[in-house]
């Protein structure tokens, strides 16, 4: 079979999907209107819209260790603690005790005011404060340091922040360091990352797994199988059509989030679209694997329920995957959606370029390839449901 025929078959399958979709008003309504609008509106209402303050450091637990116990150090503490950017300064630790907490996920940074701080300031010398961070979250140390520096500079230009990175950065697993950690972000930005992923996963999975199981039940899949069309063309055709729907959904969610709920993503539209489509492809791959297991439509709905449950529990959607322990964390690291959420947050919230997220991208693309290969093999070697 030539590539030309393979592609022509794929396009014919995609066109066929489109023709059927066009005639199915409820599918159009649910897939392109209800799902994106419902999730965006629901999260938008819950998370507040435009006007929220942006602070990636506000809720991060940071230990405050005052070894100087002077008027100047207390004033600095007051300046920071009453600011919108350091709402979670934790007192009561000794320096050793606070440093020992780094990496335990109770404390992510330690600010130490050394002895002699006030004397240095009074004598016009440069006064240092020390900042220790675990840096398990790439970019977060820089955020804390720069925010802290801006406050100390306003407090007294002679105050210098001396940063120290903990050894813990080497222990963190690259690519799975969900960025929230108590940070707050502008407007609907976190909501946008959640909605983009959930909408693609919800719709993409059912469109592939549910669609294939419906075709099996109605006998149209068997119609394709008795024709010379290869399995690969069927998979590619369905994928092409679903990519089209995913693009429409991405723009719907993005439009509503930006214009309706004041999201201000720190990335460009192409990055968002690319990530959104990668998530859709990860989902479609899993959908094909489920479809290859020859389940009925009811079973597909149940599996989708569990898939979403897994997402909420283990993918860093609600709980930072770094906060999970034991088996939960292993599951979290295995799920490709964990990397998807991580990549979305790093781009939308922190403005990291997509191509810098190599580990996330590698894992997701690897998942796509693996799931498509597994689905292809399963579909190829058991062409039809075994009917007695």
């Amino acid at each position, binding site marked *: *079979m030539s590539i030309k*025929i393979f592609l*022509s*078959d794929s396009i*014919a399958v995609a*066109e*066929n999907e489109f*023709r*059927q979709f066009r*005639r*199915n008003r409820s599918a159009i309504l649910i897939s392109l209107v209800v799902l994106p609008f419902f999730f965006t509106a629901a999260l938008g209402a819950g998370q507040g819209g435009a006007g929220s303050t942006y602070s990636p450091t506000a809720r991060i637990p940071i230990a405050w260790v005052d070894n100087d116990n002077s008027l100047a150090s207390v004033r600095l503490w007051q300046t920071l603690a009453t600011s919108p950017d350091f709402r979670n300064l934790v007192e009561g630790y000794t320096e050793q005790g606070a440093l020992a907490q780094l990496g335990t996920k109770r404390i992510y940074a330690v600010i130490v005011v050394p002895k002699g701080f006030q004397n240095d300031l009074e004598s016009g010398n440069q006064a240092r404060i020390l900042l220790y961070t675990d840096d398990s979250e790439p970019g977060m140390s820089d955020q804390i340091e720069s925010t802290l520096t801006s406050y100390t500079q306003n407090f007294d230009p002679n105050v210098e922040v001396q940063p120290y990175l903990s050894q813990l950065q080497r222990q963190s697993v690259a690519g799975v360091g969900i960025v929230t950690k108590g940070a707050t972000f502008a407007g609907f930005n976190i909501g946008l990352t959640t909605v983009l992923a959930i909408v693609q996963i919800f719709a993409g999975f059912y469109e592939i797994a549910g669609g294939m199981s419906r075709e099996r039940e*109605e*006998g*149209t899949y*068997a*119609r*394709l*199988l*008795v*024709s*010379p*069309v*290869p399995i690969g063309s069927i998979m590619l055709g369905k994928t092409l059509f679903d990519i089209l729907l995913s693009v429409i959904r991405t723009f719907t969610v993005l439009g509503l989030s930006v214009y309706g709920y004041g999201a201000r993503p720190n990335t460009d539209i192409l990055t968002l679209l690319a990530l959104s489509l990668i998530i859709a492809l990860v989902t479609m791959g899993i959908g094909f694997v489920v479809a290859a297991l020859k389940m009925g439509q009811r079973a597909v709905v149940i599996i989708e329920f569990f898939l979403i449950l897994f997402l909420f529990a283990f993918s860093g959607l609600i709980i930072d995957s770094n906060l999970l322990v034991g088996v939960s964390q292993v599951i979290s690291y295995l799920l490709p959606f964990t990397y998807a959420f991580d990549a979305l947050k790093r781009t939308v919230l922190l403005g990291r370029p997509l191509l810098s997220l190599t580990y996330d991208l590698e894992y997701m693309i690897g998942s796509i390839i693996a799931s498509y290969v597994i689905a292809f093999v399963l579909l190829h*070697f*058991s*062409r*039809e449901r*075994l*009917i*007695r």
Partner: protein
Amino acid sequence: MPEHAIVTQALTKNFGHFTAVDALNVSVAKGELFGLLGPNGAGKTTTVRMLCTLIEPTLGTANIVGYDIREQAAEVRRQIGVVSEGVSLYKDLSIEENLKLLSTLYEIPRPKAEVRIRELMDMFAFREKSGRLVGALSSGWAKKAMICAALLHSPQVLFLDEVTSGLDPQSAIGLQDFTKKQCEQGVTVIWTTHYMGEPEKICDRIGIMFAGRLVQVGTPDELKHSVSELSVVEVETPGLSQGQLEKLKARLKEMRQVYRVKYVDPKLEVSCERTDTLAEEVASTLLGIGARIRAINTKDPTLEETFIALTGGEEEIDRFLESGGQKA
């Protein structure tokens, strides 16, 4: 070009411990209309599904117009057309849209496909309904649409699996005539059914399947004569009660092997192992249980009666059907 359109060699399909098709050996000539006859669960549809490359045989193999179903499945699919309950058209598309999709998948050049689609639309008087969605068609028209789809690429072998079920008698007869014409044009047809009357009327040869095995193959006449030890009497005996019928069965069974006793007031049909005295035995038994006899005569067995005799009798078939297709 091979002499035979279909040749199977020990074709077997197991589902776990259950053998749906058991070492099927059959050859079907080019242009032949071959009937596969058997009750539900006999293995007909599984056989067709293996030949259509929808399911993989457990053992054995088959050739369709020279192509091996295991090794050259894609080529086999180009040579066959399938009409089966499990193989449907897209309900949300019109018949014309369905045919256009299939013409692309069968790599028929567009101008040629358009001509062929028009030809089929005319043949089945579909012109006025060409734009109507398949889901909105009546079952008869939907079946015709499926036949159109199966014929689109001018296949050399056509599988018609239980194709007349759900059709009105007129449409069924029309379809039978159409199928015969296809065979005259060189198309080989496999016609599977559990309606006993159908293959007798139209098929060149019939294979009787039961419990996954091909019990007998031959022309309708050959099959009827193959059961030389079968005797059938037909009695007109009005008002026979259930009790009388049971007594009749019990007494006849004491004398010989009875394949079937069928009673639809006033007609009673008894088929059993061959004997010259069956009419006398039935008459005397009936009179003995107080039944009235208006007429009695012996007759040649029908294909249905032959089928029942070949498969071990009506009770054996009942046991088979009750067991969900597993031979007792």
